[in-house]
């Protein structure tokens, strides 16, 4: 510490003063003259339509992507972003409104054709589709892409539906068995036909194929396992220039091998910069100025920017406040808190009003009852268990204390709570729960971890949770596809528990719920299936495995320089595959 003390003291004082003065200086008025299309305009319409090419699109995230490997990503924003450099068998149309939620053919000529028993699904590949190096994409590449998702010791972060559903015996993935013919879950009768073989009937299979990047073709001879994400081979309008650098980002440049008849993507910017690790406040500042065009996380601006936008008419016209489709909720780990009455105590004591405020009050979302948000097909609102979805509800200290008595811990207990350290709203939720549960003696030790490792290595790792006594944590979930299965299976089925990237964080091994899941496979009628899903949701809550939070509304900002921007209902944020900047 070589700086002289007087200088340090003086400079700290100056810093404090100048920050104060800057704050008094007031909000940004850096509007470029043009009026925004109007508040909430991008929810149903495409704002600033344009087909002009050129310019550099700058997209930033405050932490980092969970993985750039299309087979290894799970965050909704990642599966949105991957479309820039990957095409899949099926994908979401690039359209606002409900049209954007239906699966559509991408590399496949059409949606998959099921067998009568819904256990075999056949897809026909378009011909002449090429990778960035000119090689043609064949059925074997799709088979390989699906096969590699079976090895969770290599690819730890992505969805696990294929490994759970396909009839592949005890196949362990291509890293342990290089001969792809031994993978029976997917067969390729010829170079342009892909057939999936399921263990159980599953009428929603097209939705499953559609939602992730896991059917993006991967050439077996170019696969590098965990390191493939450093330069995934592109089948989309852009390709990585050099490697992606974890923690810093990378650059995407146009891929001339991409087929422009692709209806779901555009190739407008001359360059796309993806910037990782940018501080959330700084990101918002640059976003409001238009130096950055997109906040990749898609969960809305932070507190300062929210105030600036809502109190400035010009800025407000460039903002949207859609219902995002996410539910920010908090799973309770039943391995660390095995007694249901202790879990009930935690839910009773929780200050729901503070959680609602932490996400931004009216602009942040609505208090939740069921875990499935309102836009899931056939979802019912459900009953409040051990809490109230009412504004101003601060928890019930007396009921919490009664529950503590019932679970044999009248003085309370001490556990750990996790949150994502790069998300200030989640930190505020954590502090609020620490305070409200502390009223009845439940002591929460707060620990923050960055978003890109949170689900893979910390909260989504049963071993980590056990070792660190993690009982509860902030979390959020968007439907993998808009049915109860797509929302709840990964959260509640005992078959869904994984050693890394686990979404059944509550560690539910509930026989009744597992039975209902088995029943769902046998049920053909969607309305009957919806009934089962509602029952599962109800038991998820009645057995105190979860603290409901808020159905998210995000306040999102789109600079005027951003073209073709619209809110995509399936991703719960702006669509990233058709943006331009000219």
């Amino acid at each position: 510490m070589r700086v002289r003390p007087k200088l340090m003291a003086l400079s700290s004082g100056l810093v404090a003063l100048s920050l104060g003065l800057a704050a008094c200086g007031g909000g940004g008025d850096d509007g470029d003259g043009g009026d925004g299309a109007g508040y909430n305009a991008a929810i149903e319409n495409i704002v600033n339509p344009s087909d002009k090419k050129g310019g550099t699109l700058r997209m930033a995230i405050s932490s980092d992507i969970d993985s750039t490997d299309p087979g290894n990503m799970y965050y909704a924003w990642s599966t949105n972003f991957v479309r820039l450099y990957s095409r899949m068998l099926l994908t979401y149309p690039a359209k606002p409104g409900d049209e954007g939620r239906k699966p559509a053919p991408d590399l496949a000529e059409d949606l998959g054709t099921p067998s009568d028993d819904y256990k075999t699904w056949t897809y026909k590949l378009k011909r002449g589709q090429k990778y960035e190096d000119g090689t043609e994409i064949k059925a074997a590449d799709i088979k390989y892409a699906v096969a590699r998702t079976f090895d969770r010791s290599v690819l730890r972060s992505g969805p696990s539906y294929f490994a759970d559903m396909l009839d592949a015996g005890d196949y362990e993935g291509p890293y342990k068995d290089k001969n792809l013919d031994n993978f029976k879950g997917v067969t390729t009768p010829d170079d342009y036909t892909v057939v999936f073989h399921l263990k159980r009937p599953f009428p929603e299979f097209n939705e499953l194929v559609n939602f992730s990047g896991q059917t993006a073709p991967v050439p077996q001879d170019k696969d590098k396992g965990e390191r493939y994400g450093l330069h995934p081979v592109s089948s989309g309008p852009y390709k990585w220039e050099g490697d992606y650098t974890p923690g810093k980002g990378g650059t995407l440049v146009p891929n001339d091998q991409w087929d422009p008849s692709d209806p779901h993507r555009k190739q407008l910017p001359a360059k796309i910069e993806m910037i990782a690790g940018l501080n959330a406040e700084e990101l918002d500042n640059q976003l409001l100025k238009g130096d950055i065009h997109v906040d990749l996380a898609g969960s809305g601006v932070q507190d300062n920017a929210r105030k600036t936008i809502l109190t400035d008419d010009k800025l407000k016209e460039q903002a949207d406040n859609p219902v995002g489709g996410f539910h920010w909720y908090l799973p309770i780990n039943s391995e660390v808190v095995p007694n249901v009455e202790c879990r009930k105590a935690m839910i009773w004591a929780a200050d729901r009003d503070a959680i609602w405020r932490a996400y931004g009050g009216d602009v942040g979302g609505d208090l939740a009852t069921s875990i499935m948000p309102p836009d899931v097909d056939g979802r019912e609102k459900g009953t409040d268990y051990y809490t109230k979805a009412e504004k101003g509800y601060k928890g019930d200290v007396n009921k919490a204390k009664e529950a503590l008595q019932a679970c044999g811990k009248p003085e309370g207990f001490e556990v750990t709570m996790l949150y994502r350290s790069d998300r200030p709203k989640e930190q505020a939720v954590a502090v609020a729960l620490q305070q409200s549960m502390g009223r009845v003696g439940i002591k929460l030790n707060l620990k923050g971890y960055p978003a890109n490792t949170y689900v893979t290595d910390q909260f989504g790792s049963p071993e980590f949770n056990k070792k660190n006594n993690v009982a509860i944590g902030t979390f959020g979930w968007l439907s993998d596809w808009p049915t109860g299965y797509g929302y709840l299976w990964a959260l509640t089925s005992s078959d869904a528990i994984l050693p890394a990237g686990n979404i059944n964080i509550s560690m539910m091994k509930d026989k009744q719920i597992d039975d209902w899941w088995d029943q769902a496979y046998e049920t053909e009628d969607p309305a009957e299936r919806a009934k089962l899903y509602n029952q599962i949701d109800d038991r998820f809550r009645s057995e105190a495995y979860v603290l409901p939070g808020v159905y998210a509304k995000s306040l999102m900002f789109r600079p005027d320089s951003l073209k073709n921007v619209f809110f995509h209902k399936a991703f719960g944020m702006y669509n990233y595959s058709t943006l331009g900047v000219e």
Partner: protein
Amino acid sequence: MAAPIEVSGSDAEAQPEAVLSGVDRKKIQGRSLGQIAWMRLKRDKVALTGGVTVILLILMAIFAPVIVKLFGHPPNEFHQELIDPTLGGPLEPRGGMSKEFLLGLEPGNGRDLFSRIVYGARVSLLVGFLATLIAMVIGTTLGVVAGYFGGWVDWVIARTMDVFLAFPLVMFAIAVVGVLPDSWLGLEGNGLRMAIVIFVIGFFSWPYMGRIVRGQTISLREREFVDAARSMGARSPSILFREILPNLVAPVLVYATLLILTNILFEAALSFLGVGINPPTPAWGSMLTQAIRSYQIAPYFVIIPGVAIFVTVMAFNLFGDGLRDALDPRTGR
């Protein structure tokens, strides 16, 4: 005609202090270094202001619970009914400052900022003092050994000090906080975290003290009284303890005061980066982080923890400077 001052017997020369001390008979006596220093300090208004402020801050930290009980609300208690649910700012103007909330409300959760500042002083001062104590012990020991014995001992210690001074303290602190277990040596949770912070800061600021002590020791060991002691047969340990160390008290005290302020700033920096004391315990540095996140919603909030840090650090600085001037008027000025 004014009566002349009566000077008793043998004290022939009139001392200026005697003239000024009034009509009372006073035996003129030689003043010790401490007394002379104290008189000089008393005349230095700036240093006195600093010293008084330091004492007030210490009292504030010690009596925090009483002060908060009388003038504020518990520091971790939420008051969200006074906060706008959508924008997050206090509903009342001027940041919610009132008789109930002397410094207003924290945005978002509505906690009493006055209480949090008062309790925050505990963390800053406790860490500042204890870390400095560690630095003093290590620094004085190694500095004296290096300065007195010279040769390769000096060389090794001096180079070690260079390495430590070049070390990026903050990065090391972040790394240490990340890997340390949840309980260690019987401490856990916030107690352990506090201990780690104190230890890290103390352990890395000892060279600051070490260098000063080494320099002072080198100049002292050449002085006549050391030669005199040696010629009378005194051995090194005795020389160290009876001749050198007593003469180090003054500079060590001065630089300890200045080191405290450096360490308070270190603690604030660590809290600011999120590796200091855990929430919900108030600490000025982490309050500053929160303030920056909400400067649009509550602009006054940024100033409050910053001013607290500034005032504390300046107080120690001015007092320390004054102390140094009082003890050795040849330096400074």
